[in-house]
């Protein structure tokens, strides 16, 4: 949740920055990606996912996580959206 106080204490933060940061949070949910990485590992350990499929999915998710980290780093200097 965005704290309105942020706008009061950081008047230089534009509403567009805030909306952008919220959109980044929505689009790149790092926790959800981490959960998917752990689930992929679990399904592999249970023998429900082949090693090839596990490796493919893992690479895919790690790339998503990198993209999410980068996107968050780009906006983190501008505004912080409280979860």
């Amino acid at each position, binding site marked *: 949740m965005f704290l309105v106080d942020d706008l009061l204490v950081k008047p230089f933060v534009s509403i567009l920055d805030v909306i952008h940061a919220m959109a980044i949070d929505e689009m790149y949910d790092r926790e959800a990606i*981490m*959960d998917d990485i*752990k*689930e992929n590992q*679990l399904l592999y*350990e*249970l023998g429900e996912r082949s090693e090839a499929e596990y490796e493919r999915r893992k690479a895919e998710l790690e790339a998503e996580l990198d993209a999410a980290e980068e996107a968050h780093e780009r906006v983190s200097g501008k505004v912080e959206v409280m979860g």
Partner: protein
Amino acid sequence: MSSNLYTYGVIEKESIELDERGVDGGTPIRTVDYRTLSAVVSDIDTMEPERTDENARAHDEVLREVLLYDGGRTIVPMQFGMTFKSGRTLKSVLRGGRRAFRQALNDVDGMIELGVKLVADEGADLDREAIREDVGGRLAEVSARETDDDLYSDRLVLNRAYLVERDGEEAFGDAVEAIREDYGETLRVQYNGPWAPYNFVDIEIGAQGR
């Protein structure tokens, strides 16, 4: 090989050397002392080791070797990736954090960590809350502490780490076996460990300390 040190965890002062291959293949695994503490380390070239499956496994395996070393040692594990530029910087971190390390060593003295997951079939219709209450209650009786559930998948009914006295591992294993007998038809029971007590110590070392 540079003089960077990859650090696995901290034990009561003792000189230990292991043949195990460490993170990034580093050998030997040895100890660096500061007063009454010893850090378990290996040499490493980089300051930012990549968290590959192989490296994560090497980190866990070294900790497990120390945990089981010569009848068992108490170890306060570091999170993956703790690398220091030299023995001197590592010692200064041990000095700065000595109270926290000492407290953590006391908190987990003689303890190991065990993990239990209950996994449901895809779309299974179960009374998950009742299962958690029953299984959670049974495992609480044979453990000292437990974590909250980490239910990162819809398939997970229960996923907890347990802190157990080293001598209590067998009783805990028996309890898990009984749970497997009772729930084996509807749930997969995944039991793992012993691990260093990652989930029961909380020491953070900032990058500025390294």
